[in-house]
């Protein structure tokens, strides 16, 4: 990892369990990192959430998407949660999302990707 990525990991790792996907969406997912979902869903939750709110795959863990929904409701920008987040660009793993945000690299989506808001 490059120095900036190391710094980012040192800050966001303990705070959010950051996995360094390099295309951070914390802002729109209730400040809850969706890459901690075992299925790494960017548009969760899946249909496997247990009645007590725990994860289908890791019963000892609360569904990260449940946490995200609850936190998002307390944020002024709740609506962003309902946006369709594009597929992960797997080339960005391990790079700094801060740099990718500044350079707008994290906004690049496949040419055939189209997000309709309605």
């Amino acid at each position, binding site marked *: 990892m490059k120095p900036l990525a190391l710094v980012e990991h040192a800050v966001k790792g303990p705070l959010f369990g950051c996995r360094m996907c390099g295309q951070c969406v914390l802002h729109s997912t209730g400040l809850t990192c969706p890459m901690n979902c*075992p299925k790494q869903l960017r548009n969760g939750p*899946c*249909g496997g959430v247990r009645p007590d*709110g725990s994860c*289908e*795959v890791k019963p000892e863990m609360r569904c990260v998407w449940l946490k995200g929904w609850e936190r998002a409701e307390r944020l002024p920008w709740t609506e962003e949660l309902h946006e*369709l987040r594009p597929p992960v660009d797997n080339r960005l793993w391990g790079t700094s999302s801060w740099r990718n945000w500044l350079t707008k690299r994290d906004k690049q989506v496949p040419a055939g990707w189209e*997000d309709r808001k309605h």
Partner: protein
Amino acid sequence: MSRLEDALASGRLVLTAELGAVANELDAVARYVEPMAPYLDAINATDNTSAHAHASPLALALALRACGEEPVLQLVCRDRNRLALQSEIVGAALHGIENICCLTGDDVTAGDEPEARRVFDLDSPQLLATARGLSEGRYLSGRPLEPAPHLFLGAVENPGAPPYEQRVARAWKKVRAGARFLQLQLCFEPERLERFVAETVRTGLDERVWLLPSVVIVRSASALRFIDEKVPGISVPAATIERVERATDQQEEAFEIACDLAAHALALPGVAGLHLISFRRDAGIAALCRRLGIPTRKEREASGNRHPVPV
């Protein structure tokens, strides 16, 4: 336009079912679907159900068509990356298969090969948007796909799993991404299904998507307990399991419960039909239809049947 799309668009009552692990011979597929087929508009060709490997969904879809049935190709995100998912859809389109149902999929840990690598390169809303792109003549990369295949896209949503109050919002996301029908996950709590459907109507989602709640026909309390404990995202109330357990004829009691759930779901405004699941080759689906007074598909097509005769 596929037969399923046509039936839904016409406003007729629509029934679907599914074909899963049973089939490794064409004859077996024919035998499996034969008792239920007269009532069905389409049958799902499932994709490694509960994370157990079986004949691929495209192979099952082709087998169903060879039996004269209309397939719905299921695709889950667990086993294929975005290239493989697109090739499966384009491959299906090559064979004239238009109905595609996009799911996240149970995790590998739900199956008999929990050591497998899980993929989830896309999630179900992303897969829907990708499939819609294919139907508009482009791969995800932007490369043209000519001619653009006609696809009838659907998805699944689970009214019976937390966060209950957010499930319709997630259904909306899938509809915006391209879903035009929703086969709802099994729900043994009628009031949860009722709330979900009411919310779709309140938010106008029922005008954008056709809803098909699922009902399963089982034969025993142990089958219900298995579903409750082993199938991700489905809970069966203890009272329901006990009711079947205490009955002198478990199979009959379980059938009664299925009929009650089916009748309840069909009575909800906003529901277009049912997705019926029976794990065994038996006449359960046909028996349920007869009990609820649902005519066969051909009769529905002839009469434009909308509402089943009340039980």
